[in-house]
């Protein structure tokens, strides 16, 4: 998929499995995508679709065992991250690639001050004095819109509100001006008003530092607003990958259509009922035969249950895994 040298990250056929007593959990099963410089890429899917595990695999934060990366490569700046040892990966983590986690309540260490944790992130990768790191930390807190920064440096996480903690997390993540910022559902645990502020902040910092962002969310509204390209995941597999307009206006996968149909729209004249996707996601241990979405798909044919559909490029830069996508494309099958 990497078609030019503007590509920063290129992931091919990534498979991360977990070997548990109950069986093999195929958390990420054949994910491929690329990330361009300065781009915001959205990864969307339900809980358990493998979004977070994909992100953690990029950073090498999967516990092995029980986890295992079965196949694939993660090409970052010409280096396959999967081939690196933990010691070498440390130099990338928090430095070239950093991550903001879902729950700021639990993601900060309760027994160290914000200043301590922030300076630690700086000193882990920059050879500067403590005093310089302190000044840099103040600068970062100011950048993420923290009020009263000198006092805040000495505060502990429990003295912060959720939004403030997430700002502190972001300050930590951008401490070393990373090329890629992975935001794993950064606003799920926050109030709606704070959500917008945090996302605006991420967007603003992205533009300021010229980095790329991987935005993981299950909120299509967030995707529509911030992402340029979107990867839709279902049960560990990438089902559709395209630019944001195509995903919303010309989806070729019934799952994507279902996601869009299950969101309320303000501009609709008729008060239509929302159309939820029937059923629940399958267990990752016991996946159905054939297309994993077939049991919930209103377009599914008998042949869909025999084998998994190949990932095809149906239009330029628009990838989809569905046997009936060609019928949607030709118009012989209506999306409605």
């Amino acid at each position, binding site marked *: 998929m990497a078609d030019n040298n503007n590509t920063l990250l290129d992931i091919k056929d990534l498979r991360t499995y977990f070997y548990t007593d109950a069986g093999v959990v195929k958390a990420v099963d054949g994910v491929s995508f690329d990330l361009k410089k300065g781009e915001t890429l959205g990864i969307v899917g339900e809980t358990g679709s493998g979004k977070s595990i994909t992100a953690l695999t990029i950073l090498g934060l999967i516990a092995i065992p029980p986890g295992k990366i079965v196949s694939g490569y993660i090409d970052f700046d010409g280096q396959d991250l999967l081939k690196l040892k933990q010691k070498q990966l440390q130099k990338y983590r928090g430095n070239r690639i950093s*991550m903001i986690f879902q729950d700021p309540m639990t993601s900060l260490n309760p027994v160290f001050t914000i200043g301590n944790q922030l300076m630690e992130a700086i000193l882990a990768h920059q050879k500067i004095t403590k005093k310089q790191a302190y000044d840099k930390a103040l600068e970062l807190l100011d950048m993420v819109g923290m009020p009263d920064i000198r006092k805040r440096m000495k505060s502990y996480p429990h003295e912060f509100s959720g939004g403030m903690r997430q700002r502190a997390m972001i300050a930590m993540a951008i401490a070393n001006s990373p090329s890629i910022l992975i935001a794993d559902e950064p606003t799920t645990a926050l109030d709606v008003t704070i959500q917008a502020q945090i996302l605006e902040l991420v967007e603003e910092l992205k533009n300021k530092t010229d980095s790329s962002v991987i935005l993981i969310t299950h909120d299509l509204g967030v995707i529509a607003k911030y992402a340029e390209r979107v990867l839709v995941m279902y049960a560990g597999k990438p089902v559709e990958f395209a630019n944001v307009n195509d995903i919303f206006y010309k989806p070729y996968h019934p799952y994507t259509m279902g996601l869009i149909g299950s969101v309320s729209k303000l501009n609709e004249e008729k008060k239509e009922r929302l159309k939820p996707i029937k059923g629940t996601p399958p267990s990752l241990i016991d996946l159905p035969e054939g297309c994993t979405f077939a049991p919930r798909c209103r377009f599914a044919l008998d042949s869909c249950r025999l084998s998994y559909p190949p990932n095809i490029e149906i239009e330029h830069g628009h990838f989809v895994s569905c046997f009936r996508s060609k019928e949607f494309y030709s118009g012989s099958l209506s999306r409605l």
Partner: protein
Amino acid sequence: MLYYIIKRILQIIPVIIGITLILFILMYVIPEDPARLILQKGATPQALANLREKMGIDKPIYVQYWRYVTSLAKGDLGISYRYRRSVNEILAEHYPNSIKLAFAAIIIETIIGIIAGIISAVKKYSFLDILVTISTTILVCIPVYWLGMLLQIGLGLKLGWLPMSGMGDGSIKYYILPAITLASVSTAFVARMTRSSMLDVLSNDYIRTAYAKGLSNNRVIFKHSLKNALIPVITYIGIDLGTLMGGAILTETIFAWPGVGRTIYLAILQRDAPVVIGGTIILVLIFVVINLIVDILYATLDPRIRFGGGEANY
């Protein structure tokens, strides 16, 4: 903080009143006449009556109790029936020995216990982890007096490496066997607690954050995990220190250690009420004070704990 400490110290007063009351009644109920105990057989009734009056034990119990409490307030623990010496003196003589032994045991349990626990947690399911698990299980199961005797026979009698009993000149070799014996069960507990606490902490989100920052494994374990993991372990060690300082009756008896546990034990056998009550009061005091110190230490380890209704918000 200061307010909290003062409050905690004032709380000791009702505890002391309760303890003296219970012990006083218990010792009073025992049908043993201290005067007869002192003068022994063959004393004339007149001599016994005289002594009773002199000691004040002919008075009703509430009068005796009031007298005891008022002199206690002045720091006087009374006179031993058996030795005719001040209880303060007797305890002052024996307490330092118990405290020294307690510290020796605490040092052993802290160092060995925590190190074993960390290794066990970090190298989960490895040979070392299994070794620690098995040896701690065995240690917890072995009765203290039996372990003490085995050590005496093995290292003391058969090999002759270490003295078997007593304090001798107080040099370090006299401490080794009793301290190991005293620390055995607690060392196993500390190791197991450190292991489970550490494993618990390592599964936290903030540990993942620490790794995501690009910190080294050692830094994540020794900085981010250990401080969190040690909070419950410190509490246990603190309470254990309080317990050990009260003297270890079994260990002190086996090793003929001239400590306070043995003194109180002998005093109970001899119905020597002032020594029993006085010794227990000091024991309680030390226990309460150490608990207070542990709680303060706790707050420095865990900033979320605020004293006296602070600004903590969750």
